[in-house]
């Protein structure tokens, strides 16, 4: 029960934090899903759209060693549940898109631009969403 309450608290809060003028958000350790990753990054640079800000994900070495083909965690929102088990390790909870984001994106070229990744993932086709 305690862990459920904590989870609840976390979910509520991800959408709640609206502190202006944060210069940067650092996600220390990979985030288990892409929507959560995006929500966290979205806390940066509020207040004044002219203030530049950054969102840095620092991910663990195991992320690079994981074969995305063998990730079991269901994509966020999928109704497929894993087998009943009390506690999952972070490796087991992290979804495949989040792993790909760290493995394949974030290099200085068009193909691996993180903006493009988010645009693709969220089905955002507007012209301002892409590589700049």
């Amino acid at each position: 029960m305690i862990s459920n309450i904590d989870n609840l608290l976390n979910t509520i809060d991800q959408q709640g934090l609206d502190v202006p003028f944060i210069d940067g958000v650092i996600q220390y350790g990979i985030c288990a899903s892409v929507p959560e990753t995006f929500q966290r990054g979205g806390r940066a640079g509020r207040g004044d759209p002219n203030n530049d800000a950054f969102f840095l994900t620092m991910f663990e070495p195991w992320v690079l060693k994981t074969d995305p083909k063998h990730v079991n965690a269901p994509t966020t929102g999928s109704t497929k549940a894993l087998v009943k088990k009390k506690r999952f390790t972070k490796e087991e909870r992290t979804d495949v898109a989040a792993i790909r984001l760290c493995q394949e994106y974030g290099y200085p070229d068009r193909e691996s631009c993180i903006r493009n990744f988010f645009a693709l993932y969220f089905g955002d086709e507007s012209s301002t969403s892409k590589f700049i």
Partner: protein
Amino acid sequence: MYQDVNEGKYPHLIVQPEQFFAFKGHLPRLANLLQGHSFRERVKRLFVDEAHNIATSGLPRDGQEAFRPAWAKLNEVRLRLPKAISVQALSATIPNHILDIVDKHLLLSPEHRIISLSINRPNIMYANHLLVGGINNYKNLDCIIPADLHPPIRLPKLLIVHDDKAEVSRVATYLNNRLPPALQCLDIVKHYHSDMSQQYLDTVFDDFSDPDGKTLILCATSGAGTVCDFQH
């Protein structure tokens, strides 16, 4: 007050999904109102904010029970309300597969329109970086506080998000120790997680929200930002 609500004195009601469903055998007052024909007929529009929660909080995930199953029962509310009402679902982060779930769940009309703005704000730069030597090597964060910190170097205002409460405290201590001794007691680096007292959380949060506040680096669990009026 619920008498007034029933009679339509308030044009807008802001409610939580849980208020529509019985809890431990008790029917919340809003659920009670919804059983009355006159109240149902009064409702003209239904807005679902943070609609992705229907899937992300309402459905079971990773073999765990849903955090807030009431989210995935909103279709029952939709069905009880008049068929002709307008329904709007809002979200800042809704990938296509979740949009499909929301669409079906809220029984949106086939003619519904999707209005979307770009999700990538132009002033945010993204980056990914490997934690060299693993997650316990806090040297990866040394770049935040230069070894020779002195005026006019300005520290950026940073939020560092962690999974683990113990790690939050350790990293905050580590970073604080990198400050010159004279600055170490000035609350520049603070830790923030749900084991701390409400009073502490409020104080730190208010200071961090203040553009002129003392705290510049906040180490927090993903629960940070607590406007936490949540009892536990």
